[in-house]
């Protein structure tokens, strides 16, 4: 059993040993060992040319990664939190996501942008944003979000080998979360959902840290005689519609759980696709659970009212079940 931060570190270090063009860049990744100790010890192994501390200039170092990728390297950019990626949003969405297309394939952008996403505890308004909906919007980007150390390692190795820019969303709350990771090498392809819990009555579609919120909810729904499947999509773009549609075909009811704001979010997209393709299979409207539609407040009692909890998932599943 290893914690998530170690799984992420193993993925980066293994890939860096294999390919000398890979480097890790970001604030405090080298000498400080990473704000969340994800890159601990990597400076000693790879040296300052490959584990690179940057000044606080997100737009600048993200643009640097874009240029370095175009010229033949494979950067990994760590955002101390994805909130700070919004300072670099232009370089991610206007440059990284588009140069391959607007150059008609002459320049590739093999970059991984990774770091913690969404809320942790009492981080207040500007350090709690979940950004998947902001990035999944753009063709040219891939967006993935692991929920276990096993998935994190396998997906990150795939991300590093991908020739496209990949947004890799971690969670501060999960860096210490432990799980089994085999000694032998493995990769997890993008666009393959994973059934984290099998069930017959309703499918809960989810990714990232809230997979665990939903597993907890599914466990408590058992007491109500409701058998809930938890489908971890793992990658948001590309999206494994086949797995989602197969789950709906089995359960005829679905709930989508998405951290972040509801308006124009990933959950809305998934629900649209379900109704476009599975309308006749549904026994109830598809509902979603998201953060409340307000900026994140600081006080614990308010924060808990805003974020997704197992109780809210249970309530919504019951609505879908007509209970």
């Amino acid at each position, binding site marked *: 059993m290893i914690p998530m931060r170690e799984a992420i570190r193993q993925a980066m270090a293994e890939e860096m040993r294999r390919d000398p063009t890979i480097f890790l860049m970001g604030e405090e990744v080298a000498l400080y060992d990473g704000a969340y100790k994800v890159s601990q010890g990597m400076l000693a192994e790879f040296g300052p040319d490959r584990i690179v501390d940057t*000044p606080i200039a997100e737009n600048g170092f993200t*643009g640097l990664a874009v240029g370095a990728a175009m010229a033949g390297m494979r950067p990994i950019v760590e955002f101390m939190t994805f909130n700070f990626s919004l300072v670099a949003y232009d370089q991610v969405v206007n440059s990284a996501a588009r140069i391959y297309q607007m*150059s008609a394939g002459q320049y590739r952008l093999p970059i991984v942008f990774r770091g913690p996403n969404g809320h942790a505890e009492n981080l207040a308004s500007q350090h709690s944003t979940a950004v998947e909906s902001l990035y999944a919007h753009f063709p040219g980007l891939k967006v993935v979000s692991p929920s276990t150390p096993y998935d994190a390692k396998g997906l990150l190795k795939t991300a590093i080998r991908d020739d496209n820019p990949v947004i890799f969303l971690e969670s501060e709350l999960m860096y210490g979360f432990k799980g089994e990771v085999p000694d032998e090498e493995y990769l997890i392809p993008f666009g393959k959902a994973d059934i984290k819990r099998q069930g017959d009555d309703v499918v809960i579609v989810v990714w990232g840290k809230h997979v665990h919120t939903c597993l907890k909810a599914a466990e408590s729904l058992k007491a109500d005689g409701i058998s809930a499947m938890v489908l971890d999509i793992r990658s948001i773009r590309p999206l494994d519609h086949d797995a989602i549609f197969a789950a709906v075909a089995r359960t005829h009811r679905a709930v989508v759980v998405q951290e972040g704001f509801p308006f124009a979010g990933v959950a809305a997209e998934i629900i649209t696709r379900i109704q476009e393709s599975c309308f006749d299979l549904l026994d109830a409207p598809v509902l979603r659970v998201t953060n409340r539609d307000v900026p994140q407040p600081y006080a614990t009692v308010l924060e808990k009212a805003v974020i997704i909890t197992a109780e809210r998932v249970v309530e919504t599943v019951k609505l879908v079940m007509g209970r």
Partner: protein
Amino acid sequence: MLAPDPEQRVVDRDELARLYHQMYLIRRVEELAARAYTQRKILGFCHLYIGQESVAVGVAAACRSSDRWITGYREHGQAVAKGVSPRKMMAELYGKATGASNGLGGSMHIFDASVHFMGGYGIVGAQVPIATGVAWALKRLGTQDVAVCFFGDGATHQGAFFEGLCLAQLYKLPVVFIIENNFYAMGTSLERQSAVTDLYLRGAGVGMAHEQFDGFDVETVRERVGAALHHARSGVGPVLLEIVTYRYRGHSMSDPARYRKDGELEEKKKSDPLLITEQRLKDDFGVSDAEIEALRARADAEADDAAHFADSSPEPSVENLYDYTYVSPR
């Protein structure tokens, strides 16, 4: 002042004639682009380089062919100077399948990896940190090449410009940043955009070598940029150059440029890059009017050929619309 490149050859008659031809070719290509725009054969935004030709051609004359160029949206002249064929360039403006970016990029997004022309960017200043990253890779991959980044006076107020400069200087990267100061950011004159009108002084704040000079004479550009490239190539760090120039046309084809002062354009045209170099060819190298005429005729024919090629090329196929959204798995 940066020390000159000791290995740079003195410009001889043939070299200067070649530079004149290049500048004249760029002007003709731009004039034909303007005409095609009024005929609605070129659409969208179209930003012309007329008046600034000595900058791109002078920089190209100082560069190695393996040096990488990254620029903004006013890049037609730079593309031709870097070696993008006028045919491919013009076909891209026409949105044709034979264009440098297969018609996917258009006027503002010309890319040609075969000559290391790494694109025109439409977000002002975004190319500055990208150039820093190209230089990062050139250094880490062990090349002796330099990244050259072009942008206008308007870009020097963007955060991306400042951040790109900070990082390039911090990591001592082989990059030459070139402010082409043409005195207008769209319709906003220099003194209305900036409290500091000597834009090269921005380099001082990040500890970067910085220099300013007039860019109307292609030989001056070649020599001073040669010095900057020599500095960057030697590994000591980047350079910020402010090359003073002037654009004759509006910001884009839709801009009549009514914000200029009366007589300003006419005054600036007295130091036209083509005039200066033509005079020098005649006065100092004994080039005849007939020879000048022959250089122009050759460029006219090349520009006409490019326009004809673009006009007669096929449209891109809609079937290929999704080909370059993602790199396919290997």
